[in-house]
């Protein structure tokens, strides 16, 4: 099966999804894996990987995967969301899944904007960043999801990484799936390119993600 990407050229998401799929393949759990998608650009992954995948609603993927995992405890339940789905409209469900230590893995694609709708201010938009809903630059405190969630659950695996370092990304995702296998919540936030809405290209994309790290430090929490 050949994956056909409908993401924009230069988008970070296909890289993240491929790394994730590589792990499932390596661990021979492709058939047990189910990928739930939030709405936003994440929905474009619906037919991207040769694993069972379904779309949900905006902000609702975590709650859906919590239900899925209850019905199939031996599955690898993955909730894939953007920063808006995870930290704004779906924040309540995300926090409660973490508080209850639900054994699902949440992957958050952080590109600092609402990308599908054309670059509006997101929970992870940085101070001073200009968006179509913050034309003078955002003055809203960005949400540091992993740091916040760490305080709600001592057993979860929680990390922030970047798509510019595939090895690190792979390591964190592997540990997140291990945490799920051991019955714990896990969340990996991934800093990810959005050339379309950032309006930058080539090497500047990498520089942009490096600047993001000043607000969103990498590591485990």
């Amino acid at each position, binding site marked *: *099966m050949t994956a056909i990407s409908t993401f924009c050229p230069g988008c970070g998401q296909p890289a993240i999804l491929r790394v994730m799929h590589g792990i499932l393949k390596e661990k021979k759990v492709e*058939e*047990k894996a*189910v990928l*739930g998608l939030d*709405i936003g650009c994440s*929905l474009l992954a*619906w*037919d991207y990987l*040769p*694993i*069972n*995948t*379904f*779309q*949900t*609603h905006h902000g*609702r993927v975590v*709650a*859906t*995967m*919590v*239900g*899925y*995992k*209850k*019905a*199939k405890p031996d*599955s690898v339940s993955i909730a894939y969301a953007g920063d808006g789905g995870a930290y704004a409209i779906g924040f*309540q*469900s995300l*926090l*409660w899944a973490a508080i*209850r230590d639900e054994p699902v893995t949440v992957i958050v694609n952080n590109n600092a904007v609402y990308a599908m709708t054309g670059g509006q201010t997101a929970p992870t938009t940085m101070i001073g960043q200009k968006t179509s809903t913050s034309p003078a630059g955002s003055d809203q405190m960005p949400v540091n999801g992993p740091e916040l969630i760490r305080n709600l659950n001592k057993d979860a695996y929680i990390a922030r990484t970047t798509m510019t370092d595939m090895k690190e990304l792979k390591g964190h995702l592997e540990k997140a799936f291990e945490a799920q296998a051991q019955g714990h919540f896990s969340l990996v936030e991934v800093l990810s390119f959005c050339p379309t809405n950032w309006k930058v290209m080539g090497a500047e994309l990498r520089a942009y993600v490096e600047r993001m790290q000043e607000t969103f430090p990498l590591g485990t929490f």
Partner: protein
Amino acid sequence: MKKQFLTGHQIVTQACIDAGAKHMFGYPITPGTEILTNWIDAAQTNPELTQLQTEDEIAAGFAVCGAVMAGNKAFTATAGPGTVLMQDAMSMADGMRLPVVVIIAQRGGPSSGTVIYSQQEVNLAIHGGNGEGMRIVYSPSTVEELYTHTRKVFNAAWKYRFPSVLLTDGFLLKTTQDVELSFDTKNEKGDITIFEQNKKQHIRNIYTVEEELYEELQRQKKDFDKMALEITESEEYKIEDADIVIISHGIVGAAAKAAIDILRESGISVGLFRPITLSPFPTDALNTLAGRVKKFVIIESSMGQLRDLVKQELDTSIAIKIDGLYKPAVGISVEEIVEKINLISK
């Protein structure tokens, strides 16, 4: 079958267990809370049952969606403002044809309204989504029907793959009486949406091309109409010689029956037409009746949600007078119905 002394909540909970439900996801809201607490009680001793008190109704609804996609029967119970929030998940169930079951314990609205009773969630139950309202909705009128209709709701959901609702209210759910629980139809097994082995399924609810969604909706409509022929149900009571026919659903239908017995004693030829499935609506039965009786009297605890359903289904070539007793969010007594019909038949 032996008689048991049970409340409506206990009966619904038992029906869900007997229907093969494995998971309940719920958020406390009056008057539906006891379904959650009774289920949790049952789960203490039955290892097959799991439960989760979620952070809100939205999460409860989506967790049900997730569980049914994994192939297990699951449900939630909610009411009033919770029924509003539940529309998010129910709309996904509409779009993806998920056998989601929702028990709705109607309470007074709008807003937080009152907490025990109304018949004001008819529109929400059927048409609360951002689509065409292709849902299965049963309206039980007695505690026995709380049991049989809950079983039917699960069977219909899993056989036909439309989100399905038991639309009831706090009065009926809080009623305690001797009851015989019996239902002789086998549980539907239904299909698992997500298969593990060699079935790499890609399931969506968003379409990039307008025609794709259009075609999907045509398929849904075809399935819905075919299903309607098989499950549409109504009760007709003393209508053979009736001039006046009361149309009521749910608990008001039970009050109407008692009123009809009294009215018949004083020589008034009145009967009852009670839609059991509000969706799909028993349109043919309604129009057959409309062609031969003089008057319909619609009686409901709403300002006209049932009336609007009736009017929308009535054959426009039939001229029939429609009167009504509309009491939003308050109970309707047998005496009030007797008085209303006496007034009309003078």
